[in-house]
């Protein structure tokens, strides 16, 4: 790597060639404020908060787009720079609604933090405020264009990382807005509800649609038996949402906290993840035997499923017919479990704690009603659960570690790793290997499918027969895999796709902010959870075995199909 030397604020610093001034400064531990810049997105250079003085330059330069060069002299903290940044920020604030106290992002807003850090104590410019109605059409996300500062991070996230392009700039000048295609509501365009936009929005302009009030109401209703399921990724992120270090494993504390909120039973999506492996694993074995359609593609990630419906409807026959673990849980809770408890399906209220906003959409799909009523009643993101715990005054870190309830809280390590990219693949391989070969798997760790590479490929030897697999996370990476399948250039038999970067641990409902290091910390924690479990293969889950014995018969049985499988709907790509 070629290095260059430049001077920042009188200090000589080394930087890699190709770095911007901003990157060089950050690498040297010098903080420059940013707003439209995001380390994982193409720089835009629009907000002017990262301006610096460069000796010899005619005017201030935006450090996020200025390449660093040898011998450059940069000043990041001069009166001129400070005044320019503050003025730029005040102009952004001039038409910003001052609703901080009631805003979803209060206390976690980059605009708010910058106003504080840059010493804005009054706004000298009083501008006309926008008055655009909120878009509440989506079951997953709410857009409030009045709070939008037009930084365009959501547009770049939706396009560059997710390849969905549901959002774009409309109009120009004062009238510019960021809107879904043709000024429609979000529910009327090809949005996959992944919520990645909400994780990069610096303000409260895009947030998850909250169902906290519905859940409080259900918890207060004596006629409802309220059960909760927690997604694999939540046990390594709820702590982070409450101020603990990224990657803190808080499984037992989360269970204790949910009991204190008043849930009648605290169950685990890891249980139904194991169940998913039983169904999906056997589906793979059946398709391998019958010759297709292959590759089989996983169906756990509702953002990915919706993406496939919009953009690759011709590949829908490849998608596993298995419902996602969230929906399998709901279906089992309202049938098998309800019958065991002597309850009617409509008296059981199923709440999900999910790292995901697309799960809110999935829960409201009309076909997800195995018992006659919706499988899942309310979906809360990790962030919403954190808010509930704060509202309830629960001292999370001080809670004891408690155990999940039986039977739907019993799980294996295979269920846990569903939260990370490659995890569903690895969990499936652990089971498929043993079912197909009848042998005990020596090493449980399929490390080739782990990690943050965009597309991962591996070959697995099933007693002489090689199975080729691929794993993609983030929809732009998924597109690469899908285009190869579509072109007939792929020889994989099994493909895992997760919608969000890093898999569910990087989901649209996860703590904000997020970056590669935080994703890596959460992933590391997920594999620690797996390694610490006494059972690590889904088919060894005793509660799943009992469920088959008492209720479902065998994987892919008629009953299993009725409750645990679904179908898909081609949708418009616009």
């Amino acid at each position, binding site marked *: 790597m070629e290095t260059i030397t430049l001077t920042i604020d009188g200090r000589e610093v080394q930087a890699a060639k190709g770095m911007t001034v901003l990157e060089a400064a950050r690498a040297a531990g010098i903080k420059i404020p940013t707003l439209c810049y995001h380390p994982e997105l193409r720089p835009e250079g629009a907000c002017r908060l990262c301006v610096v003085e460069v000796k010899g330059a005619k005017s201030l330069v935006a450090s996020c787009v200025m390449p660093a060069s040898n011998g450059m002299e940069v000043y990041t903290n001069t009166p001129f720079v400070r005044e320019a940044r503050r003025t730029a920020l005040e102009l952004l604030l001039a038409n910003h609604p001052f609703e901080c106290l009631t805003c979803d992002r209060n206390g976690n807003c980059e605009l708010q933090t910058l106003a504080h850090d840059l010493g804005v104590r009054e706004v000298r410019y009083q501008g006309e405020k926008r008055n655009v109605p909120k878009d509440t059409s989506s079951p997953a996300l709410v857009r409030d264009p009045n709070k939008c500062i037009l930084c365009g991070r959501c*547009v770049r996230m939706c*396009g560059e990382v997710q390849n969905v*392009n549901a959002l*774009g*700039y*409309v*109009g120009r000048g004062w009238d510019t807005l960021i809107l879904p*295609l*043709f000024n429609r509501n979000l529910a009327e365009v090809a949005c996959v509800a992944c919520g990645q936009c909400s994780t990069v929005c610096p303000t409260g302009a895009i947030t998850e649609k909250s169902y906290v009030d519905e859940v409080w109401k259900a918890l207060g209703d004596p006629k409802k038996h309220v059960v909760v399921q927690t997604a694999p990724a939540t046990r390594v992120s709820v702590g982070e949402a409450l101020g603990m270090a990224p990657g803190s494993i808080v499984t037992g504390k989360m269970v204790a906290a949910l009991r204190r909120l008043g849930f009648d039973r605290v169950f685990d999506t890891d249980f139904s993840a194991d169940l998913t492996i039983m169904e999906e694993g056997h589906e793979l074995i059946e398709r391998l035997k019958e010759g297709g359609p292959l590759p089989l593609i996983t169906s756990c990630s509702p953002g990915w499923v919706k993406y496939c419906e919009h953009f690759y409807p011709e590949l829908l026959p490849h998608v596993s017919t298995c419902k996602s673990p969230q929906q399998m849980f709901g279906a089992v809770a309202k049938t098998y479990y309800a019958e065991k408890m002597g309850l009617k399906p409509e008296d059981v209220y199923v709440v999900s704690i999910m790292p995901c906003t697309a799960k809110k959409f999935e829960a409201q799909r009309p076909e997800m009603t195995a018992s006659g009523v919706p499988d899942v009643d309310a979906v809360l993101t990790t962030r919403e659960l954190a808010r509930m715990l704060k509202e309830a005054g629960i001292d999370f870190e001080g809670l004891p570690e408690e155990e999940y309830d039986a039977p739907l809280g019993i799980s294996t390590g295979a269920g846990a790793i569903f939260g990370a990219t490659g995890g569903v693949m690895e969990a499936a391989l652990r089971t498929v290997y043993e079912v197909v070969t009848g042998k005990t798997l020596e090493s449980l760790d399929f490390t080739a499918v782990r990690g943050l590479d965009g597309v991962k490929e591996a070959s697995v030897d099933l007693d002489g027969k090689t199975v080729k697999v691929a794993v993609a996370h983030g929809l732009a990476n998924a597109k690469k895999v899908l285009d190869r399948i579509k072109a007939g250039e792929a020889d994989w038999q099994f493909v895992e796709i997760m919608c969000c970067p890093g898999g569910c641990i990087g989901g649209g409902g996860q703590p904000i902010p997020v970056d590669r290091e935080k994703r890596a910390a959460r992933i590391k924690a997920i594999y620690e959870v797996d390694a610490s479990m006494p059972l690590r293969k889904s088919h060894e889950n005793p509660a799943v075995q009992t469920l088959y014995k008492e209720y479902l018969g065998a994987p892919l049985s008629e009953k299993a199909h009725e409750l645990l499988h679904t179908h898909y709907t081609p949708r418009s790509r*616009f």
Partner: protein
Amino acid sequence: MSACACGNTAPKYPELQEILSRHEGEKGSLIPILQEVQAAYGYIPEDVIKEISLALDIPATTIYGVATFYAQFHLKPRGRHVVRVCQGTACHVRGGARILAEVEKELGIKPGETTEDLRFSLEPVACLGCCGLAPVMMVDEDTHGRMTPDKVASVLARYE
């Protein structure tokens, strides 16, 4: 081009296909294509944006962003006749606002809108550059100077 169920497979926008094939493989062709589409159809229909998006592999949101950024592009059908009432300084001083108000009343639309019968579109304009005739309005290419509110109806009546 997708076919509908009626059995008629003729493309809905034949001119678009010609425009697209004229620019096939050309870089930076989006704006010329939009200009030619507008020349062919008078405006840029949403379905055409979708077709361009598929043909050029450019997100429809990006195309819509370009089309709404430039004042020259229209996203709604325009009237057969375009009315422009000057709001420049000289016309303002001599009552341009009253002329505009009368046109709005007569047509029942605001600047930027089109009458339901697609007869007239009303467009805002800052200065038409003939201040000696103030207050002035244009209909299509015809200039009508020294306007008064009571002349508005008879001027408009000349355009079917």
